[in-house]
């Protein structure tokens, strides 16, 4: 078994709210120097910069998982994480049909740049990505699981786009792979809630919008850096587990 430090929630320059410095080589540098071995790229409702980050990571002992931070119809942010770009692209196709065709106003929301592995500009995404899709939380989770991905409600205790403020409590009939809490929160503030789904792992990620914020707050003791192994760690199966670690 190996220990992989991981950050499963991170934005690139494709997310309107992310800093202009969040280009692939900078992200990789920062991740490597933070001792991170698994990174999931999770831009808002889009997957277009994942492959550039994967290319930039070539030659490093760093696995880039293909992800998205999907915004559901209830205004909830949901991390969707896959092994391959094909799976992420399949989700993208669904999201593309269900994201309102409202144009981004870069002056208000920020630029949405698609870049290559060096960070050079390819094109701008025109549609506003920081917007709710027509997918309900439940149907989004079903789509993700049908694609063999992980469905993790993001920063559930944050007022903006968190599950708990939006829904009031954890619905019991959803299949959570894990629950992400705000990086400054105490896990016990979630596990002590009456609606907390018993046994579901609580984890932290950086949700980095700036390079300096990239941080592997959790270590995964697993055999390989794959979704299947991470899922086992969430469940504590076959000797796999996760542990919270302090900032370096």
């Amino acid at each position: 078994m190996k220990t992989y430090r991981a950050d499963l929630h991170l934005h690139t320059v494709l997310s309107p709210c992310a800093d202009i410095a969040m280009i692939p080589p900078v992200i990789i540098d920062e991740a490597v120097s933070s001792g991170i071995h698994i990174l999931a790229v999770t831009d808002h409702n889009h997957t277009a910069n994942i492959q550039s980050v994967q290319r930039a990571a070539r030659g490093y002992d760093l696995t880039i998982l293909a992800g998205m931070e999907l915004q559901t119809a209830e205004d909830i942010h949901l991390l969707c994480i896959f092994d391959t770009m094909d799976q992420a692209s399949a989700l993208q196709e669904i999201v593309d049909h269900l994201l309102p065709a409202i144009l981004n106003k870069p002056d208000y929301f920020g630029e949405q740049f698609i870049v290559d592995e060096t960070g050079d500009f390819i094109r701008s995404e025109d549609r506003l990505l920081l917007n709710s899709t027509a997918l309900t939380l439940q149907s989004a989770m079903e789509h993700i699981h049908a694609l063999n991905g992980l469905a993790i409600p993001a920063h559930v205790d944050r007022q903006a786009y968190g599950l708990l403020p939006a829904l009031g409590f954890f619905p019991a009939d959803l299949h959570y792979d894990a629950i992400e809490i705000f990086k400054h929160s105490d896990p016990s503030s979630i596990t002590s809630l009456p609606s907390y789904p018993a046994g579901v792992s609580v984890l932290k990620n950086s949700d980095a919008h700036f390079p300096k914020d990239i941080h592997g707050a959790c270590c995964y003791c697993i055999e390989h850096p794959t979704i299947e192994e991470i899922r086992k760690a969430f469940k504590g199966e076959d000797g796999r587990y996760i542990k919270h670690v302090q900032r370096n």
Partner: protein
Amino acid sequence: MKLNEITQKLNLHQFTNQEIGSDDEASLAYCSDMLSCVMTGAGHHSIWVTLQAHQNIVAVAALLELTAIIITENALPDEATIHKANQEGIKLMGTSEKNFEVCGKLWEIGLRSS
């Protein structure tokens, strides 16, 4: 005010299949789409105005013993939500109008903030 009268005056339709009796009434209303706000802000036996139509609205309404939920902007609760609402005795009403318009009308006919 009787829920029957409110239903008639605001031209609401009911998603659930419950009889609206003479003891179904409300004098207070609350409007928010954030369920955590509703849980702390809406008083018992109020009417709740929201454009949310997912299952958790029923649980929140049952918890607070609300009289009815008015779902706005043609949002549609799914079968499971309607079924749960019938089980819990929560009346789900619908309208094409927006939160603002519904609240304005409720105020006009005499309801006040809970």
